[in-house]
């Protein structure tokens, strides 16, 4: 790990000006610092300044005040970018009006990680592909000429591609929160080089065909200040993990629904851990319309569409079937339908 200067920004202006300070050659914003420090330890990046934005106060407050940093005005929920995953998981507002966000935040990683990890950091964390994370593999994402996952060990890689053909990079997007925020129509607010920007969460990410060395569309120097989103009181999340402690999901799904009587009137479905970006499943959402979530057979049928169009690699075909199950169970979670085996667990 390299030496670096640590800057504790007190307000937005300080954060932005530190980033432009000519005495730094590679300054970066730091949230919880988890992913950054992992990268530095592995020698993947060597920033010479870490600008901690968690203390940014005043206008465009990043840290949020009070026990619940989440505010709700009318239908709009707002929370600061440096709110921790633990805060998100415990927020009374989110638990009531957007349970999908509270659930995804509460399911990521471990309590220790969630106490430190920030919302913005979670959205912008880099992929977990084991070739990417290992400095000795100079893969496409790091400017090399090969994707090692294609011939190598790809059990945890993507089954969907964003471009017309699979690849060239086969990561899955790592963020738990991103798909949850997508079903809530979230907007990411930034300040930076030009003006304030409002980026619909779906536009925050891009696939490898639009550039393989990054996963998001922010420009250098842009700081995420807060997130706004719509209330989704009937929403849910389900992750399938190999290990129930300290593990990344094999696949997961986030669902928001509006009920029309006993049946689903409208649904939004976004999956995670299956594609290089949070993966929207509009066909499944359409098929869910009119389904009674208590009718498991109808639900299963609608969700079976989830794997349609998947092009699995050698070792990750199992994800296709799992995805349908994750979506189905996310709907059941949203609708408050009991899932087999979850009693007493």
């Amino acid at each position, binding site marked *: 790990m390299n030496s670096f200067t640590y800057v504790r920004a007190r307000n937005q202006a300080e954060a932005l000006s530190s980033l432009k300070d000519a005495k730094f050659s590679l300054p970066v914003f730091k949230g919880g610092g988890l992913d950054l420090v992992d990268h530095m330890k592995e*020698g993947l990046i060597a920033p010479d300044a870490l600008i901690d934005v968690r203390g940014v106060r005043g206008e465009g407050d990043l840290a949020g005040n009070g026990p619940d940093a989440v505010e709700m005005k009318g239908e709009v929920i707002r929370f600061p970018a440096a709110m921790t995953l633990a805060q998100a998981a415990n927020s009374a507002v989110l638990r009531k009006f957007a349970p999908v966000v509270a659930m995804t935040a509460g399911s990521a990683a471990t309590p220790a990680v969630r106490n430190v990890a920030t919302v913005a950091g979670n959205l912008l964390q880099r992929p*977990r592909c084991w070739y990417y994370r290992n400095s*000795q593999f100079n893969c496409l994402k790091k400017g090399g000429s090969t994707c090692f996952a294609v011939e190598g060990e790809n059990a945890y890689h993507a089954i969907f591609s964003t471009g017309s053909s699979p690849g060239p990079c086969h990561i899955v997007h790592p963020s738990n929160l991103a798909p949850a925020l997508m079903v809530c129509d979230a907007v990411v607010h930034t300040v930076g080089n030009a003006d304030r920007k409002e980026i619909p969460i779906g536009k925050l990410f891009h696939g490898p065909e639009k550039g393989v060395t990054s996963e998001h569309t922010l420009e250098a120097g842009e700081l995420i200040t807060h997130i706004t989103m719509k209330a989704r009181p009937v929403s849910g999340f389900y992750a399938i993990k*190999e290990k129930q*402690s300290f593990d990344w999901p094999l696949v997961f799904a986030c669902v928001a629904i509006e009920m029309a009587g006993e049946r689903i009137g409208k649904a939004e479905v976004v999956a995670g851990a299956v594609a290089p970006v949070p993966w929207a499943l509009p066909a499944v959402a359409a098929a869910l319309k009119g389904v009674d979530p208590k009718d498991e057979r109808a639900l299963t049928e609608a969700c079976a569409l989830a794997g349609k169009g998947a092009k699995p690699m050698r070792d990750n075909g*199992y994800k296709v079937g*799992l995805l349908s199950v994750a979506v189905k169970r996310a709907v059941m979670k949203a609708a408050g339908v009991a899932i087999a*085996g979850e009693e007493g*667990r």
Partner: protein
Amino acid sequence: MATTTPTMNRPMNLGASAADHLDRVDALAKVTGAAKYGRDRYLPGSLFAALIRCPWGSAELLSDNAAEVGKLAGVVEIKISRREGTYHGRDVGYVLADSVVALKRAMNALKLEWKRREVKTRIEDTVKEPPAINEDAKKVLDAAAKKLSAVYSTPVQTHSSLETHGCVVDHRGDSATVYASTQGTFAFRDGLDEALKLKGSDFEIVCEYVGGGFGSKLGGPGKEGLNAARISAARGKPVYLFVNREEEHLDTGNRPSSMTFAELAFENDGTITGGQILTFGGVGVARGGGGCDVPSGRYNFGDLRRAHTDVSFNAGGPRAMRAPGKPQGAFAEELMLDEVALACNVDPLELRMRLARSGNHKEMMKAGAKLIGWANRIPTGTQTGTIRRGMGVGLCSWGLFPARAEGEVVIYRDGSVEARTGTQDIGTGQRTIMGVVAAEAVGINPDEVRCSIGSSKLPVGPGSGGSVTAPNTAPPMRAAALDAKNKLLTIIAKELNVEASALEIVKGEVLRGGQRVMSFKDACQRITGDSITGRSDAAKVDTSGKGHSDGVQFVELSVDTETGVIHLHNVVALQSCGRVLARKTAESQIIGGVIQGLSYALFEQRVLDRVTGAMVNANLESYKILGPKDMPHITPVLWSKGQTKVCSLGEPPVIPTAGAVACAVLNAIGAPVRSLPITPAKVLAALAGVGGKKNEDGGAR
């Protein structure tokens, strides 16, 4: 995880001894960080070393910038002694610097240009086809009513010791102190004299605490110790060399992978008549050490042809790991039995009662069946719900092996008592149980004995391997304590003008004919010098007698048939271990063994990139180890029927677990998963019928 369930068959001579509730004596030091491990020794003026390693399964070193990096501030030396490596992690040289920071900078700045070569990474790269069936075995198979033809496989499991391998060597010219992380204080010493250019008596190995080893820290100083010793000897400065987490996975040994090809012949009632079992061990670049213990001898397998072959490929080689060769064999063996039972429609426990050779195992199976509630087991293949429950059972056994050990007990004038043994504590509770043994023999409370361990200057003791430590160190420690007590009582006897044999010490009081004479503390003040020392006399220590350790484990779990995820519910682990010295540390050995076995069953595996031979999960994130939420309720049952000796306990509890898990999965879903770890993907494949086809005899394939 509650483990307070009362244990059955409590050791007969323990009674209400204090040791029944005694906590691990160094628990507080360990959890507060007060305990100093080898890794914690940062000596003034120390140099820091790291090994340079081959990053690929096989590669040639074309060029390096060592000369340039050597000029960086703080870098003392860079030595490259090999220009090729045949496994990821093969050391080819070292970097030496005067601070941790300088060392890290140098390692980062070091640019090595490697040319990769083709690699083999698995047994299957060599063993491409099922081996032929021997003619004799064929005859048995042809005559069989039923047959099972199956292939079982297990992955490489790394030891994943929390404290990585290494040591700090402080060479001071004519003497040296070595702070080592080792399971063999004396083997470490004996392997270091040449490198240090000193006699064994001129230097001390200090190993007060060890952060795990599981067998990988048994074989002397290893390359970490030898390199550190040579450098320290040459430079006359302390040298710190501990490997990092990645290196720990790559090059400090492992449990080798295995493949078992079974062709079994059996009767309609499940009686196995014989056949053929061929095993292969995946030993990386090593030539041997890949044994896979099946059949184990615990069951009657009839007329069996048996052969084992070790297969080499481009990967770090094995080292002894907690019951070497046994868990991989037991996995295949137990699952095989359940497949036979299923094919014959026999209860698998009933089949085991018939095939098991030891009466002890049978008795334990009966007792364990009650505890787990075997009567509620649902017959295999009859469940249709999403969540299906399963139960499995597995057996283990272990012998008792001799090892050289001595003990010393010192009674000081101030009444304090020190028990001394050079043997280290790898987590088994050596410090705790030696105190118990000494205290009991002297006649005082365990908390009044201080136990000094982990030094080559203390009385010799065995390496912590083969589960020999407690059985071999307890008798001499007892002998030493009795010797010390007798010396003390002789002094008192003289004063009272009686025979020493007329006196005894009970609960810290000297008694004569049951009447209190004086307190133990007062007695100690009569010592004329500073202390008296009791010693064990090897010739007089009774280590005879047999002490076989048997075990039976039951696992209860459920399988989510939509996701393939397994939820572990209960494990009942009955384990004979002879006389129990301290119940909590004994139970902790069983619980720890079970946890390691469960983790092996469901999660752990070294993943080598098949193209480059590099290990892609050399960390504790994607090398998955069972975590708190995955933990079932574990009930350890100490079983000491018919045993009075202290017997082996460290290794056996890890043997049967994975097999029992596999059987429980078969019971739940009706199809076997014959390959560890049992991941959701494999469960789903088994459910979908891939690899779960029935053969024409009705046996599962």
